[in-house]
């Protein structure tokens, strides 16, 4: 009798000790990945970013580690974090993208998507993923393209032609200023580019969420880049999914550079050649001085 009781106690003790060990052996990483039977098969898709070829199978693993918390398991922007985030995470199923080098309404290039992942989006929850390798980003682009049927049914968008940037001259800046007025950019961006124009407060994006126009006063970076070339593409391709339209049909390419040069003079806290040239004139110097004194905190709060 005693021996059996002892064995029983001993056996249950051993079982209790072993149980957690056995349990841990099932999930070595400690993370709960989708069970093999539930995860949908990954569609075969490639991406070409520079010299690197990305592959969707590899991209899927990265996506479910880094991206799905915001962008969702189905890539529709309905991740766990989505309710707490403004603007909403990108919905890859509709394939409408802000930062492209292609005409409004058309799909971005693989490079556009890889650039967006690398840069992140200022004033949003999308961080800069420079911590990933070029191969990682190319793989992610390939996987992201599997969320929308558009990449199978539509031809990829053709990048717009960006002519070489002419020299920064006062004439160019002046002409850009005239365009800013004529094209009524100020209606949203405000006369000083502070995102406080008459239409600014009622703007909504294509998800019906309130959205603010870019505030040139606050910095030098944009949603879609930092350089003059990036700025050119922003208004010549439009920021799809937002109120910012494309001006490609109404601005000639050479005139577009004039507008770029003028817009840089609105970024009065950023030392650019355009601003330096503008401030060397009495009119420009007076305007910039007045703007530096005139503090407002409307529009998107970007830190330089």
């Amino acid at each position, binding site marked *: 009798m005693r021996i059996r009781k002892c064995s029983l106690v001993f056996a249950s003790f051993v079982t209790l000790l072993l149980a957690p060990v056995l349990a841990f052996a099932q999930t070595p990483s400690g993370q709960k990945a989708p069970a093999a039977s539930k995860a949908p098969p990954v569609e075969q898709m490639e991406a070409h970013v520079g010299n690197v070829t990305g592959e969707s199978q590899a991209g899927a693993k990265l996506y479910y580690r880094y991206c799905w918390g915001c962008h969702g398991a189905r890539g529709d922007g309905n991740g766990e974090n989505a309710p707490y985030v403004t603007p909403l995470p990108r919905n890859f199923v*509709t394939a409408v993208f802000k930062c492209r080098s292609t005409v409004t*309404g058309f799909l971005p290039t693989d490079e556009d998507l890889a650039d967006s992942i690398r840069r992140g989006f200022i004033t949003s929850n999308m961080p800069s993923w420079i911590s990933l390798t070029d191969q990682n980003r190319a793989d992610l682009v390939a996987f992201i393209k599997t969320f929308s049927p558009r990449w199978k049914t539509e031809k990829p968008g053709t990048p717009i032609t960006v002519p070489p940037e002419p020299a920064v001259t006062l004439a160019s800046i002046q002409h850009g200023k005239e365009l800013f007025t004529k094209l*009524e950019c100020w209606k949203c961006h405000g006369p000083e580019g502070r995102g406080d124009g008459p*239409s600014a407060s009622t703007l909504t994006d294509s998800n019906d969420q309130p959205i603010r126009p870019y505030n040139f006063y606050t910095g030098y970076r944009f949603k879609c880049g930092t350089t003059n070339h990036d700025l050119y593409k922003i208004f010549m391709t439009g920021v799809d999914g937002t*109120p910012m339209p494309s001006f490609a049909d*109404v601005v000639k390419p050479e005139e577009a550079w004039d507008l770029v040069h003028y817009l840089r003079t609105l970024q009065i806290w950023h030392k650019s050649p355009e601003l330096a040239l503008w401030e060397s004139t009495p009119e420009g110097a007076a305007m910039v001085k007045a703007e530096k004194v005139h503090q407002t905190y409307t529009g998107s709060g970007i830190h330089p």
Partner: protein
Amino acid sequence: MRMKYVVLAGLAMLAASAMAIAGPNPTGGTVSGKVTYEGTPAKMKPIDMSKEPSCAKMYSTPPLAETVVTGSGNSLENVVVYVSAGAPDDTAPSTAAVFTQKGCRYIPHLLVFQVNQEIKIQNEDQTSHNIHPLPKLNREWNKSQPPGTPPISEKYDKAEIFPVKCNVHPWMHGTFAVLKNSHFAVTGDGGAFSLANLPPGKYTITAWHESYGDQSQEVTISGSETKTVNFVFKAKPY
């Protein structure tokens, strides 16, 4: 004798040409009816265009919002009635459907056209507008259109009904209805519609309104009769 043959031949030619002009099935059936509402619709508010003086000054009294437009006899306007099933797809007509921005409003408020038919969007105002249609199945694009610039030409390759807006002028709302066939009508004052030239068959007729949703009814055409199909929408007080 010869005169009789000449007259007969002339009559035959006349009949043949009449049939040729009318088409292979000149009569066909017709589905017609009225779209009305029951209940009390919300009162439309006047649009405040003070942020756009160049448009505001075009109106002696501010125009009303067009979300719900009612007409005589409890009729509901701006309802597109179309054949959603039972008819084959039609090739798009070569004439463009025209959408005009005037007085900071869209004319017509609801533009109906066919898949792959060209639409021409023109700006007759003194201010810039941006055209921002918001489809979910078709491509979403957004273009600026300053005054004095040529019309924007576009088309859509999927059937869909979706809103159009101008971001600069938030009160501007319109609808594009891209349909697969040519059997459609938009109701005006009185709510009447008529879909003609329907060959024999079983059809689903759908009526769509931007606030009150859509309804469908089935109808069978056997010859050249006119079938009456009426739609009654439930009005919302808000």
